[in-house]
């Protein structure tokens, strides 16, 4: 039986080569590109559909077809026929790499810290009550994570914050809206940062650690009710004027809007004083997938385009600083003084998310 399959395969391969030769001859004059398919986190969809990105990739011989899925949901998808997966952080990427035996190190072309977006009045009320500080014009500021967690623990409501009474939308429990930590990366990273702060700046290493912060994590998730599956959806609701006053998004989502010249007058970007960063990591499933991942990391043109979409390219900070020069009212380019919470190992983070969802 195996021999027969071998013969059939050989015939198919020869046929394939023949076809390739013919096709190659026909395409002599045009630029032939390889089509690579990938599953990506929703926040990178606009990057890949940007005509300039399509052009830059095509110049390097790639046509990239993508579809979006939550970073953790990628594990449940059948990735046969895809060349790469591009989740929003290292933990789900490592899990996928193991499942599909992708060779380490994985290309990590760019990253973006998690931030909280708020409308100006909500940010001012937080600042007036010691939960945040605002810089300059109030377009950006710092969220004091420890204070915020204390408020959450005590079920503090907006009504009990001074200055909130003038605004109809500022009622109910004070909480940050995140995505579902079981399926989406930003939700899981939120728990990573919150649990790190709650445990006195210690990263959870095992079930016992998870157990210690579990009641608070459960509260942070439980108050939200149903959660959006992706950070894009949560951000869209926010933009349309619907949704909770405080929404966790990637800095990149805001930076990208600003780069497009969109008006965000009334917005404040709050950088948590201890935050987590999403390392957008390519999991190559084929050689083409790996080549694409490496190209995204090294090609100056693509790095500049990534920065224009709000991502921070790995290594040199020049591209991001240049791309966001006009938007420092909202964006904190340097992030000096901000702490980065380490992300627990994949299995630990999963358990944390599961217990938080209850």
């Amino acid at each position: 039986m195996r021999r027969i399959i071998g013969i059939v395969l050989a015939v198919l391969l020869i046929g394939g080569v023949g076809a390739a030769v013919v096709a190659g001859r026909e395409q002599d004059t045009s630029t032939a590109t390889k089509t690579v398919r990938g599953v990506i986190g929703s926040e990178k969809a606009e990057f890949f559909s940007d005509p300039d990105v399509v052009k830059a990739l095509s110049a390097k011989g790639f046509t990239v077809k993508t579809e979006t899925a939550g970073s953790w949901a990628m594990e449940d998808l059948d990735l046969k026929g895809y060349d790469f997966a591009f989740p929003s952080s290292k933990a789900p990427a490592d899990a996928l790499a193991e499942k599909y035996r992708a060779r380490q190190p994985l290309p990590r072309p760019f990253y973006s810290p998690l931030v909280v977006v708020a409308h100006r009045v909500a940010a001012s009320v937080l600042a007036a009550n010691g939960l945040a500080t605002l810089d300059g014009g109030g377009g950006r500021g710092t969220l004091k994570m420890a204070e915020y967690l204390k408020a959450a623990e005590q079920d503090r409501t907006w009504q009990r914050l001074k200055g909130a009474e003038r605004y109809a939308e500022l009622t109910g429990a004070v909480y940050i809206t995140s995505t579902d930590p079981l399926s989406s990366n930003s939700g899981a990273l939120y728990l990573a940062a919150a649990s790190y702060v709650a445990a006195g700046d210690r990263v959870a290493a095992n079930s016992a650690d998870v157990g210690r912060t579990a009641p608070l994590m459960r509260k942070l998730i439980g108050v939200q009710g149903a959660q959006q599956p992706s950070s894009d959806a949560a951000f869209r609701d926010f933009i349309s004027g619907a949704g909770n006053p405080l929404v966790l998004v990637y800095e990149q989502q805001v930076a990208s809007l600003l780069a497009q010249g969109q008006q965000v007058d009334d917005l404040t970007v709050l950088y948590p004083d201890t935050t987590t960063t999403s390392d957008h990591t390519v999991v190559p499933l084929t050689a083409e997938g790996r080549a694409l991942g490496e190209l995204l990391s090294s090609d100056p043109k693509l790095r500049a385009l990534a920065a224009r979409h709000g991502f921070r390219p790995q290594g040199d900070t020049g591209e991001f600083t240049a791309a966001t020069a006009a938007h420092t009212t909202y964006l904190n380019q340097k992030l000096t003084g901000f702490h980065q919470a380490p992300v627990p190992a994949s299995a630990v983070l999963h358990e944390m998310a599961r217990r938080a969802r209850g």
Partner: protein
Amino acid sequence: MRLRRRVRPRVGAGALTVAAVLLGSGCTSSAETEDPGAPRPGTLRVLASSELVDMEPVLDQVEERTGIKIRPTYMGTLDAVSLLAKNTTDGRYDALWLSSNDYLHLRPDAARKVVSETPVMTSPVAIGVKTTTVRRLGWKPQEVTWSQVEQAVRDGRLTYGMTDPARSNSGFSALISVASGLSGAQSALTEADVAKATPRLKEFFKGQKLTSGSSGWLAAAYGRRGTVDALINYESMLTPMKDLTVIRPRDGVVTADYPLTSLAATGQDTRDTVRRVADALRTPEIQDEITRSTFRRPVVTSVPPSDALDTGRRRELPFPGSRSVADGLLDSYENKLRRPSRTVYVLDTSGSMEGDRIERLKAALADLTGDFRDREEVTLMPFGSDVKSVRTHVVDPADPRAGLDAIRGDTDALSADGDTAIFTSLQKAYGHLGTGPDTFTSIVLMTDGENTAGAKASEFDDFYQGLPAAQREIPVFPILFGDSDRDELEHIAELTGGRLFDAQKGSLDGAFEEIRGYQ
């Protein structure tokens, strides 16, 4: 909490055909026989929430830009989620476009069937109150809370219509808003919040005078009735209505965000097509068209919402995070909170029903019986040359089984003989109902043929016009079955403010089930 009869939105082919009737009243018989589920290149078969029918002009523009044609099949949100969970959508639909995926995410069996979700526009569920009523109540629209609405209902100064929360997302969102508002919950609803709010919710729902399986029919019934003061519906549906003041209660709203959703059971190319449509829908030009023509709110910052929409912000009330809370709330709405329903089933058991047809009727009724709610009054009125018997049963919350068993017994005893006296039987149904207690009252008419005995159509028209106003509010929901005459039944639906359901193309139990949303 007792979940004896879990609310289970079931959908048979009936739902599909009703949608088809709604859409293509002018379509030819050849189009009707074509399988609407068959795939066609360059088109996307989309299972969509019924109110999205107003997006068709926008979708034409999307087609111009992308070359992709959207073929929607309209259905209530919760029904669509059930369908998805049961694999019934596989191979029949390329994408999902519901008011909200919140309920979908509470059901793992449905949630695992979707791949990517792209919110396209938003609309909060609001209450539209007649401008004269707003004045009479002395309300400042910006200041009104759900508690004030409840107070007005309690004082007998406000009545309203809303869709059935077990079928329609607008009704469900309204239920969540009101439960949050009246329980004082500061975060996502819990079972304790619902229990606490129950007495006030009961008062609130005494004011609900209209129910509907779809928001379109609700608006029509509201216009016809004329005596209802308000409608709870999407802001987008209320905004263009005349003489209504749209109020987004100050204590919070639940907002639909219309995610265009691709499905795991489809291929990569299909999902790619879905993404292209989503991209097109989010371009500034289309977003602008959406907000100007449908009064939904844009999801891109460069496009301001329509001038007709108030830009003041509202708290977003969280959707329950667990299925037990969501289903518990639905269950108490159906069995405790809402006004009970009172229905006469006028059932054709004439000679032509002999054999397969009567068996199908019995099976459909047996199936339906499991769905009757606590406190519901059901009258079976089988007819042939005249009404054969009138049997009324009430589902007593203390012993629901007794009533249900009695209905089953009567159903079993049905037998086929005689002519078809449709109009005489309808007159008797109105007579039976009289001006009864405060309920959602309606008549379901199932017939497999034309009127052959008793009163004529014109006599029934006169009879109906001579009824007292309160009785004229009782709608007849006719079911097209066997060889019944579409025009004759359409006329009855129109005259009485009901709606025609089609069990010729769909199934009889599907039609009975669909009508539940209107009872």
